């Protein structure tokens, strides 16, 4: 059984609010949430050193900065998995919470919080910086496609420059890009000709009668908005 708590209750569980901060009508829900989670919340969670090593090895293979962290948009993945129709979907992997990824796997049954936030000072100080390096993963579900690429303002709209790699025969295509801070527009290119906006991302008019997807990066150690 799953239970969705009110966003303010989630912030209570995140430690951002106290019970007294909640509106009166939400306090019973907050108390219940605290009661349900108290035994687990207080239990120390120790991750195996081997797990840590495996995560770091994966990061090195991906060429990520050692300090980078990513988080996983579990809800988006779940929507894709559970969708009863054919969809094309892209997954942005948050660059600032890789550590949380491992913890999230351990605590998957307790999915009540939002992704951990980056240190605010980092995000804001870095905003507008020209330093590249926020890793963003793009995933497209395109069954039957022979090739998929991504083109946008980050690669001069080159249809060939940034191919996605197929994940076996599942129809899932993926790539991870290091994007500079700022706002980027993009679209997927399926089989070299079909422009497909990202259905999971915000979109704007491209000026040509189509839609461009948008990703905004707040800083190297910030976030994809």
């Amino acid at each position, binding site marked *: 059984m799953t239970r*969705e708590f009110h*966003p*303010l209750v989630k912030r209570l569980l*995140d*430690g*951002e*609010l*106290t019970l007294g*901060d909640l*509106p009166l009508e939400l306090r019973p829900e907050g108390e219940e949430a605290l009661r349900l989670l*108290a035994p687990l*919340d*207080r239990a120390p969670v120790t991750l195996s050193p081997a797990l840590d090593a495996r995560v770091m090895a994966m990061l090195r293979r991906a060429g990520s900065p050692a300090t980078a962290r990513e988080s996983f948009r579990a*809800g988006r993945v779940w*929507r894709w998995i559970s969708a009863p129709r054919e969809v094309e979907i892209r997954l942005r992997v948050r660059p600032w919470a890789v550590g949380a990824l491992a913890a999230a796997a351990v605590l998957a049954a307790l999915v009540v919080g*939002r*992704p951990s*936030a*980056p*240190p*605010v*000072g*980092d*995000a*804001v*100080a870095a*905003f*507008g910086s020209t330093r590249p390096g926020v890793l963003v993963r793009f995933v497209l579900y395109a069954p039957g496609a022979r090739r998929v690429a991504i*083109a946008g*303002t980050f690669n*001069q*709209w*080159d*249809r060939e420059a940034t191919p996605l790699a197929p994940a076996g025969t599942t129809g899932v295509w993926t790539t991870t890009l290091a994007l500079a801070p*700022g*706002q980027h*527009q993009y679209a997927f290119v399926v089989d070299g000709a079909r*422009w497909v906006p990202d259905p999971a991302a*915000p*979109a*704007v*008019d*491209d*000026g*040509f009668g*189509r839609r*461009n997807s*948008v990703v*905004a990066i*707040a800083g190297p*150690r*910030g*976030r994809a*908005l």
Partner: protein
Amino acid sequence: MSAQVDVPARLAGRVPPEVVAVVRGAVDSAAARGLPVEPLVQKALEGGAKGVPAERVIAAVRALAGELDASAGALRSAGLAAPDGDAIEAGAFALTAGLQEGQVRELAHASRTPVGPAATLRVAATLAALGVPAKETVKLVRRTIEAGRAAVDLLDLPDRVESEIARGATPAQAAAGLARAAAHLPVGPPDVPPGRERSRKP
């Protein structure tokens, strides 16, 4: 200023020659007015990549130049004597996403350190691109700023709206609910220094 952006070299083989000539002129004109020129080159490259007819590429480049101009004007009228290219581009993005010039000016005026006008406008534009009506977008961003919320709360707004949409709310409902919450929640602790985490209450 076109020396900074070699338009013919950037566009060679990517768009028809008539587009190159128009973009070169647009870039020179924009640079002379202190506007960022890279978006104009990018729009031409995009049109070429998508196989758009030359006249439509030219129209799109000109329209974008107009939005950059409008953005710069809105920022100046908000009190920024010499807005930087990042803020101008963010304002143009907001206009593309559906905000009006007056709303860009309003948000730029409302923005506060440490989140400057560029980041504020980018958040607003992303909200609009998520489908939040412009009026609700402005209200949500303004209330978040005026309530003295932490910077991360402002940067988190698109994520929070997406979460609410995933739970069944319309974009407008999501934004309205978050705006109400922003106005009524107590101000939290100051932004957490890098490398630190907020203490977790039991």
